[in-house]
């Protein structure tokens, strides 16, 4: 790997970071929105460093300095860059060529799903659900719905009209289908599934996005022993993929 190649690898990697953050919102498929400034900074550093290295090297070539190895303060290890450094091109290839989509139903079927939190945390920690007498639906994140359904012993959601948005996931083990949303703490590698089971509507196409309006089917007995949260749908509309697919 000569120095021109070294510099250009860094430029390409930096360009991939910039292209997925500055010009598109592709990065939201992979990492938290909060990563944007850091990715841009890292991309700029990589592009600048790579260009400086390439420019310095090409200037040498143009001047036809045969004593090329004397430049740069005499560092002797340029030729020892391991071959594995070429792999730095892979993230760039992945971003530019594959542009992988956000994780969806495939992951939701296989990944760990969220589980009831420890008892100590639950109960009474939730905000009010707006005016309890109003008929207006309460828009809610799936993760919030799931966490309330598991821990809100006061059952504030009971009887309220609730609006949820997520993608359709088949239920391999029985009746109905899941409306699911992946929750991400840092990057897609740590995604966790939140889902509700819907049995009173025909199953839509896998991975299509829907906003559903309906009510929570209250379980009898202990909230924490519930495995799937049932949701009774009154109305559902297909929506475009949200720009930020994770919660």
């Amino acid at each position, binding site marked *: 790997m000569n120095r021109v190649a070294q510099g250009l690898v860094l430029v390409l990697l930096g360009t991939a970071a910039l292209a997925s953050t500055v010009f598109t919102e592709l990065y939201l498929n*992979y990492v938290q929105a909060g*990563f944007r400034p850091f990715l841009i900074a890292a991309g700029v550093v990589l592009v600048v460093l790579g260009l400086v290295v390439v420019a310095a090297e090409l200037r040498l070539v143009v001047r036809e300095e045969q004593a090329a190895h004397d430049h740069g303060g005499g560092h002797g290890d340029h030729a020892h860059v391991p071959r594995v450094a070429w792999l*730095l091109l892979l993230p760039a290839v*992945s971003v530019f060529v594959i542009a992988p989509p956000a994780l969806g139903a495939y992951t939701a079927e296989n990944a760990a799903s969220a589980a009831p939190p420890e008892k100590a945390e639950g109960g009474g920690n939730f905000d009010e659900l707006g005016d309890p007498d109003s008929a207006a639906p309460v828009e809610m994140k799936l993760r919030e719905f799931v966490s309330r359904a598991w821990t809100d012993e006061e059952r504030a959601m009971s009887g309220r009209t609730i609006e949820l948005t997520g993608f359709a996931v088949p239920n391999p083990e029985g009746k109905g289908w899941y409306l699911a949303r992946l929750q991400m703490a840092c990057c897609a*590698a740590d995604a966790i599934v939140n889902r509700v089971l819907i049995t009173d509507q025909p199953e839509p196409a896998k991975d299509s996005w829907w906003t559903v309006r309906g009510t929570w089917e209250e379980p009898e007995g202990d909230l924490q022993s519930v495995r799937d949260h049932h949701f009774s749908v009154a109305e559902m509309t297909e929506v475009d993929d949200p720009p930020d697919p994770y919660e």
Partner: protein
Amino acid sequence: MTERLGGSGPPATSSLGDSLVTDWDTRDDDLPPPDWGRPRGPRRIATVWLFAGFMVALALGNAWLSDTLTGEAFLAWATIFTAISLQALPFLVFGVALSAALTAFVPSSFYRRVFPANTALAVPVAGAAGAVLPGCECASVPVAGGLIKRGVAPAAALTFLLAAPAINPVVLVATAVAFAGQPEMVAGRFVASLGAAVVVGWLWARFGRTDWLRPPRAHHDPSAPAWRVFQESMLHDLLHAGGFLVVGGLAAATLNVVVPREWVLAVAGLPVVSVLVLALLAILLSICSEADAFVAVSLTDFSPTAKLAFLVVGPMVDLKLIALQGGTFGWSFARRFVPLTLAVALLFSFLVGGVLL
């Protein structure tokens, strides 16, 4: 070359770091002359055309392939690989820049003031210093390399490497958020991680040998201007550490997609085995230390001690770290350091888990 490190006391006349740096300088003479293998001008120009061609291929690939690649498992794999790479990238660049700045702009005398000359004392100091740097694992490896380069005792630098990603403020806050209402998990993570890092440092100081550790880089020319040293150090570290980071990302993404969660959950009830399984899962998944608490809290079928092991082992030993450490310090180092760290981290998980949780 096989002198023991630390323990029995530092050399009388100079610090341990000095003797190491000298070793590296003399070793440098064995390397072939720098112009060996260096291509002449025309080939470097050709490289530019090669990359131009490569970019055209990327554009064509994007036009033709991105719609035809539809395999669900493949796309999930590609997403996770890209996610791990992009998420680690800022931390890698930050760590490499910090390491280069340590090399280029901070005089060696500074480290001698901060780190006690006695290695046995320098190790806990380095562990405490790890609580300051808010970075993930990928940042701490090049920084530790930079510390060794500047003459800090390897044992202390390695303690820093282990402690920094596990106990820095960002990670502890993330852990507190994930385990809301369970402050003992944050305390357990802090105590077990710091303890394991310091003990590994002491063991390395006592039994480690200088020649296991490949010098991170040839000692730079003292006459070169500081910005030039900074630039060269960044380029070198990025290419070395970056390639191995990608290797780790590939392995972690593959296992993330391939290993079914049911296998993991099937053993959740067994007391000791479950701890080992979560430790293994932490190694395989290679989740950034700032995010691992959120994954740990989702593994509700497991005992608190098993979750603690997940949090303690993950930032110290995982696939991308092993690749990074092997690439930075050499495989004869990684072969010894990784099992030692794993054993000590597990021991501390059991101990602290037994007492606190």
